């Protein structure tokens, strides 16, 4: 195996893994605090992507469009919690789960009816589709950008969770919500923050997702949601590091399969991925990284 193949493989795993880690983190940060699997998370990504299409159509500088899409993702995360989840919070977790299905479907229909059922092309700056040559290989520049962006985001998130009072409170609330409230941690504050971070991550995800697909359609969020689930099942639903590990591991396995499978079996790659996921569910349902979170309802 030549060096360039190895380097290409590493870059592929890291870039795909970075994106998947961001996707998974957005799911787990909400799950950790609310014990809610937020099916509407995919639609946060779609909504941010439509906002990107819209902003990119205006004659704004590219970075303004990017920032607006990311902030839009954070805003929809915040608003969906405020409007749809909060009224049901005292109820059972099942009620919340059904609510999240509901929001997901409503948003998809809204995109279909008020925007378009057909894919909308997005106008991204040239560097998002440019390639660069590195160590003797040629790779899309956005692969390098996503690796660096994710590394920065992870460091920022790590700093927030470890060093700021709000981050410490969020970790405490994820472990034991009621006791955290008994210590004066405001329930609405930590839950809103979790949804805002989730939407914020969805905003970043949409940038790189759309750069790959080139267009946005109402069901765009379904694939990243599925990827997020898989990463989370592998890494562990109960810890933020688990989500990151799951994301990178998913990318590693997918890339290994792409290399190792004979061409005739390549179309079965996803099926094989699912078999691996099912094995995880059966053999190691808590995921690779267990975390300390309590399985207790938030009320």
């Amino acid at each position, binding site marked *: 195996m030549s060096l360039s193949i190895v380097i290409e493989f590493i870059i592929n795993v890291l870039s795909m893994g970075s994106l998947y880690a961001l996707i998974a983190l957005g799911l787990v940060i909400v799950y950790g605090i609310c014990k809610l699997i937020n099916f509407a998370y995919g639609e946060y990504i779609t909504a941010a992507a439509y906002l990107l299409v819209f902003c990119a159509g205006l004659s704004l500088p590219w970075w303004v469009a990017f920032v607006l899409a990311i902030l839009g993702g954070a805003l929809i995360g915040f608003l969906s919690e405020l409007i749809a989840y909060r009224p049901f919070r005292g109820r059972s977790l099942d009620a919340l789960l059904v609510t999240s299905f509901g929001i997901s479907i409503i948003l998809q229909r809204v995109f279909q009816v008020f925007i378009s059922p057909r894919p909308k092309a997005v106008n991204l700056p040239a560097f998002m589709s440019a390639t660069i040559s590195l160590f003797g290989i040629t790779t899309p520049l956005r692969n390098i950008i996503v690796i660096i962006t994710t590394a920065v985001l992870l460091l920022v998130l790590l700093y927030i969770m470890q060093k700021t*009072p709000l981050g*410490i409170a969020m970790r405490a609330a994820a472990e034991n919500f009621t006791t955290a*409230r008994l210590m*004066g941690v405001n*329930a609405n504050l930590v839950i809103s923050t979790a949804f805002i971070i989730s939407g914020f991550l969805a905003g970043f995800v949409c940038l790189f997702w759309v750069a790959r697909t080139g267009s946005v359609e109402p069901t765009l969020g379904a694939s990243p949601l599925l990827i997020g689930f898989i990463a989370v099942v592998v890494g562990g639903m109960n810890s933020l590091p688990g989500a990151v590990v799951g994301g990178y591991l998913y990318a590693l396995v997918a890339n290994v399969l792409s290399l190792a499978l004979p061409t005739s079996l390549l179309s079965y790659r996803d099926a094989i991925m699912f078999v691996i996921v099912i094995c995880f569910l059966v053999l190691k349902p808590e995921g690779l990284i267990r975390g300390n979170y309590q399985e207790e309802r938030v009320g």
Partner: protein
Amino acid sequence: MSELKTTSQEEREVILSASDLHVGYGSVLALHGVSLEIKKGELVSICGINGSGKTTIMRTLAGVLKPKSGKITFKGTDITGKKPEQVHKLGVALVPQGREIFPSLTVAENLRIGAFGCYKPAQYQKDLETMFELFPILKERYNQGGGLLSGGEQQMLAIARGLMSNPDLLMLDEPSLGLSPNRVDQIFELIEELKSRGMTILLVEQNAERAASISDRVYLLSNGRVEFSGKAEDMASAIDVASLYMGGKEEVK
């Protein structure tokens, strides 16, 4: 605080009063009309057998459980139905049964959460020093995970965490549960020390006799009702079955 000690018991102002609390889980009532009162600087203990509703009272006073009816007033404010974080902000700290520290957070972070709603840097440093003086072990283990502490140390941490908000009322739910005799002595010494510093304390203890001996007043709870309230030494004569609740004897009479 010193003038408080010279004031006689009866003249002290009432800091918390609960009247006719009905509290349940789902449709099952656990408290059937409980009333109680705590005065500033008092040490009051609640005793009663397992399942009599002691924890339920504390969780209701702290805002975790909403009473179906009844009223709770704290420092003159009606706190009935308020959220736990709001009640905490007003100055009520609960050290829950079973310690409930945050195991993956460090000792430092656990303490920091204790002061989450009322953080002021200078005051925080001062309080931290006080905690280190009361619980030297927390200084030693300051940067270790809370989950790595022993049961007794975790209880120290839970109490210290409760104290970090400088509460006006400290509620301790079975602080000596599951601890070795040495540790139990330590906890009781600590409670007396806190009392001597003027802290108002509501205490639930498995070791009811010992708790009663250091308490100003005692409430005896049975099946979600107050059977007796008053000075510990009056309890035995006032109530026939008291020995059952106090000493754990199997048979009455």
